[in-house]
């Protein structure tokens, strides 16, 4: 069971709501994914309008609503938007995105940390989107982030976990959940992140623009579950040398009791 800020989640797949052909299709894909955590861009929704298309398609009783600050160029804008989200939606959960470069949408590490510090002080449960920088992850964690969300590759690229080495270090060091976000383009990428020990993955583009988004959502659900199962079962270490499936060393090790000293 995944727990973030004392809230349990039975699904380790988080999904985004952008890029879908319709809100109706988005809702069906989310249902098929089994996701309980759904991130929504505030720039896209009219929080003051309960009839907003995206909002009416999300069942807030079963789905945890995670507003994001997509579009914010600096800490100040992200904080403003977070306050708006909390006032209008009633949730203090926030996916913090500070992305000053509209082309790559890569996160600004300095302002992400600054905004996290401020928002935590204001009582937000902050899940910051970040580059896969292990020291930054530690700094965000110390600042009070409820989870960290390192990118696997730039948003929307479908390139998979290009940052695997850094993500492994982040996972190894973190005391808060690690959610691999961005770049996950195929169920196998999601499975890889989960096998590495990520606590969850967030997927949007790969589901939203698939030929059949509902079916793709199901595929991601299965992949995340398989990856987590494999991680918990304990994966073998890769080796360049062949080894027998019933190695002699095991027998030897078990029979070394006779050795003295």
């Amino acid at each position, binding site marked *: 069971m995944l727990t973030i800020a004392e809230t349990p989640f039975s699904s380790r797949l988080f999904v985004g709501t*952008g*890029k*879908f*052909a*319709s*809100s109706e299709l988005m809702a069906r894909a989310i249902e098929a994914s089994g996701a309980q955590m759904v991130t929504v861009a*505030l*720039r*896209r*929704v*009219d929080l003051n309008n309960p009839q907003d298309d995206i909002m009416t398609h999300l069942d807030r009783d079963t789905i945890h609503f995670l507003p994001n600050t997509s*579009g*914010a*160029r600096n800490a*100040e*804008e992200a904080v*403003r*938007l977070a*306050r*708006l989200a*909390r*006032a209008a939606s009633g949730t203090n959960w926030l996916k913090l995105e500070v992305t*000053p*470069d*509209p*082309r*790559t949408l890569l996160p600004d590490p300095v302002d992400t940390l600054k905004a996290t510090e401020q928002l935590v002080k*204001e*009582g937000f449960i902050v899940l910051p989107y970040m580059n896969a920088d292990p020291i930054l992850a530690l700094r965000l964690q110390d600042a009070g982030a409820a989870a960290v969300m390192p990118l696997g590759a730039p948003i*929307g*690229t*479908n390139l998979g976990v290009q940052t695997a080495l850094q993500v492994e270090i982040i996972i190894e060091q973190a005391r808060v959940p690690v959610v691999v976000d961005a770049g996950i383009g195929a169920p196998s990428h999601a499975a890889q992140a989960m096998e590495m020990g990520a606590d969850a993955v967030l997927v949007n*583009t790969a589901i*939203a*623009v698939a030929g059949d988004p509902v079916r793709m959502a199901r595929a991601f659900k299965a992949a995340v579950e398989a990856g987590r199962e494999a991680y918990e079962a304990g994966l073998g270490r890769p080796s360049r040398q062949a080894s027998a499936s019933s190695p002699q060393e095991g027998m030897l090790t078990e029979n070394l009791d006779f050795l003295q000293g």
Partner: protein
Amino acid sequence: MTAPSSPQTRFTVPDFATLKGLVSQATVDDVQAALRREHLRIEDLAALLSPAAETMLPLLAAESRRITTLRFGRTTQIYAPLYLSNLCTNRCAYCGFSADNRIARRKLSLEEAEAEAEILRKRGFQHILLVSGEAPAALGVDYLEAIALRLRDRFAALSIEVQPLNTEEYARLFAAGITAVAVYQETYDRRVYDKVHLSGRKCDYDYRLETPARAAAAGMREVGIGALLGLADWRCEGLALGLHLAWLRKHFWKTNFTVSFPRLRPAAGSFEPLVHVTEAHLSQLIFALRIFDPDVGLILSTREEERYRDGMLGLGPTRYSAGSCTAPGGYSQDEEKGDHHDGEQFSVGDHRSIGEVCAAIRRKGFDPVCKDWDREFQHLEDQEPVPVPAE
């Protein structure tokens, strides 16, 4: 961000003979190489714009569609222009607003502009583009600022397409709630530019060319560039657009950029296009720009006909205007007395309402997006503070 301050930091356009040399020498092999490349060079854009690429339009379309879907998803943004005035002190041979033309001239009062905006808001628009002719004395920054202050609370985003302003003026408008500026060079071919701009401040090619940089330096979120197709060689215009875009990206990395592709439309006056740009040419230009810059917003306005706009959905453009009227006060006239508009800039090619355009977008399997911004992103000094709930 820094404004270009010296000739060394200014964008300059190679002369069109040089650009023409680049596009005309490209071969089918060059086009194929460009389609395989991950990061395109300017020579690759030239190949995609070349006559050699004309026979490969389906391949270009497929690649453009693939990239557009990946970067923008199955969505199309929707906006409407709001014409504030057709007063204009320039004499531009091609434009319906040219000072030479005898058309009914007017400038909307603040109340009239507000009434027009309210009609658009009720129709479902959340992004509006404020447009005017160029008459700085009558349509100065004070007027634009006053309109922005009146409208900003009712729309997610306000853009302007007016006369070029200086950096301080753009900064003032940004502070008042304007987030985007569109300014088209009309033609990057200096020789043709001089020929079609007969008098007025617009004759200054360089001042106009530097306008996108001034707007970006002032902090505008988005800057739109474009060329008016029908004045000069469209392949060279495309290459100049690509060079301009790449230069702006390098100098203003925090700014979002868009490119528009207005083709000359029938308008007041007797101007005939200097070059013929077909729908196939326009498509090649759009596909080439998309492949060259996967993240640039591409705009297809109601200048084009509904058949063509529907066909292009998902293939490259990411933003459509809808239900447009190009005459100041035209939306109120619609409400009062039908379709008769005095003083249009040009006649539109797609006459559908926003509802009809959105329905067509949905039929093609896309989501029409009316809101993709929020005024909360802006630091508006006298904005009501957002309430912070008690801990």
